[in-house]
């Protein structure tokens, strides 16, 4: 850790002299590839709205954590996000309503419950930092945690990657091949819940989903096969994370949101490449 700090601080940039920036950079480098990996599955399985709902559910988890008087509401957040994910999948199977309706009403419910719980006593403002997030507040200990959880989640996700992808291509085809089991979807759901919750502190509830979706959506514009898709998404995610972090330092803006804007620019750029190719070819 100290070594990494020493290396980064040798860089001839103003921002590299600040410890909080070095911490933030490490966090981005750890988390960006994981976001991209999950994002490729989220986008391909058309679950962008689903992951959005899980992200928003963490507000309710926070409310529950506060209600129960937990010092660190982390596990309450993860638990509630997971519960909502499972709930959405189960409700959709049970009612056979369309997925977007089920997600929308689950999300509204959890948001409302979260706001009600957190606004008891009339002081919601205390929690508004969770809406926007603050990357620069991240500590060295948190980076260690991020690293370990990212490895675990990423590894687990890679184990189920083929299954999840084939379910996304066509569920009944996957099921007929014995690949439509319940667990890959749950694993996927758990991965989204964990990763969203882990990173909530610095990105914020409002925009965390775009970090999942944008790099993958951009990669989709130019990738020709599944491996390229993931590699390009990881590349874009890293680039946007680092570029956004540095830009936010100089522009003095919220980091998470700045990263999202850079990612959006990447998306537009790849879209341009795709259109040009379509016109030429």
């Amino acid at each position, binding site marked *: 850790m100290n070594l990494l700090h020493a290396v980064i601080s040798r860089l001839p940039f103003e921002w590299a002299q600040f410890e909080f920036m070095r911490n933030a950079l490490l966090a981005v480098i750890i988390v960006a590839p994981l976001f991209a990996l999950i994002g490729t599955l989220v986008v391909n399985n058309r679950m962008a709205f689903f992951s959005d709902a899980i992200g928003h559910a963490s507000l309710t988890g926070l409310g529950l954590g506060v209600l129960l008087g937990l010092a660190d509401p982390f596990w309450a957040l993860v638990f509630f996000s997971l519960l909502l994910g499972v709930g959405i999948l189960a409700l959709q199977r049970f009612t056979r309503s369309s997925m977007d309706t089920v997600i929308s009403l689950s999300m509204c419910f959890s948001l409302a419950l979260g706001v009600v719980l957190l606004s008891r006593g009339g002081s919601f403002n205390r929690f508004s930092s969770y809406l926007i997030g603050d990357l620069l507040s991240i500590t060295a200990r948190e980076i260690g945690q991020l690293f370990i959880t990212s490895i675990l989640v990423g590894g687990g996700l890679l184990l189920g*990657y083929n299954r999840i992808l084939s379910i996304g291509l066509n569920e009944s*085809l996957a099921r007929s091949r014995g690949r439509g089991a319940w667990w890959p979807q749950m694993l996927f759901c758990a991965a989204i819940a964990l990763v969203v919750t882990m990173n909530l502190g610095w990105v914020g509830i409002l925009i965390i989903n775009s970090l999942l979706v944008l790099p993958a959506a951009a990669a989709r514009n130019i990738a020709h096969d599944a491996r390229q898709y993931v590699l390009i998404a990881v590349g874009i995610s890293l680039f946007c994370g680092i570029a956004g972090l540095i830009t936010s330092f100089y522009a003095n803006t919220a980091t998470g949101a700045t990263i999202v804007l850079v990612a959006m620019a990447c998306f537009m750029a790849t879209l341009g490449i795709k259109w040009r190719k379509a016109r030429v070819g």
Partner: protein
Amino acid sequence: MENLAQHHIGLAPHLCGECCTRIEGLEVTLNHHSILEDITLHLHCGELTTLVGPNGAGKSMLLKAILGEVRHGGAIHFLPVSGHGREDVPVIGYLPQQLDFDRDSPINVHDLFATAVSRWPVALWYSRRTRRAALESLRLVEAEHLIDRRIGQLSGGELQRVLLALSLTPVPNLLLLDEPVSGIDAAGRELFYRTVSDLRRRFDLSILMVSHDLAGVIAVSDRIVFLNRRIICLGRPAEVIANPDLRRTFGLDLASLETSRP
């Protein structure tokens, strides 16, 4: 994948003609509505059985019952086939009704095979063995050249052939095809039927195919089952098309059949 290689060497040139799958008194009820009643049907090795019937007759439901996707009454017995090195538990290949894939998806045909048959995450690396197995299956349906094509760029007929190749990996004992040619042009249909017909002989496969294209399936089917919640009639194609109920349901098809193929 290893199994696939074995089957290729041990092709069955003869047709054993045994009963591979016996469906006895099968019934399906959904939300108190009876969908299928009293279905008794024996599928033989090396035979192509075609299911025809009006919309809502329960044709796809029957395939799903065989796959074990819906709860059903009655019994389905899969007989172990001796001498083929196959296990008692049958491998069922399934080609679902026209799939709507996301046209923009960056998934190519090789990825489709890799995600379905291999555990190595396609996100990390491609194994050469998987690619060989995919090529070998694609060769069966004359679609090797499509391996690096994105799924969204395939035509309807190409996609169906690729999915047929996938359903043959590993080579199944029973192959279920659900309206494989709907929305495909005449040339594509012709090629598809020819391929399926060859495959059944080559691998001594029993095939159950749902189709609306009565005119097209008469030439390739060994047996036709006319289904409308129950089996209305069943037999060789020539016998079945004489059935008056079937003639009423497929009136137009038969008229065109008689004029176009004297």
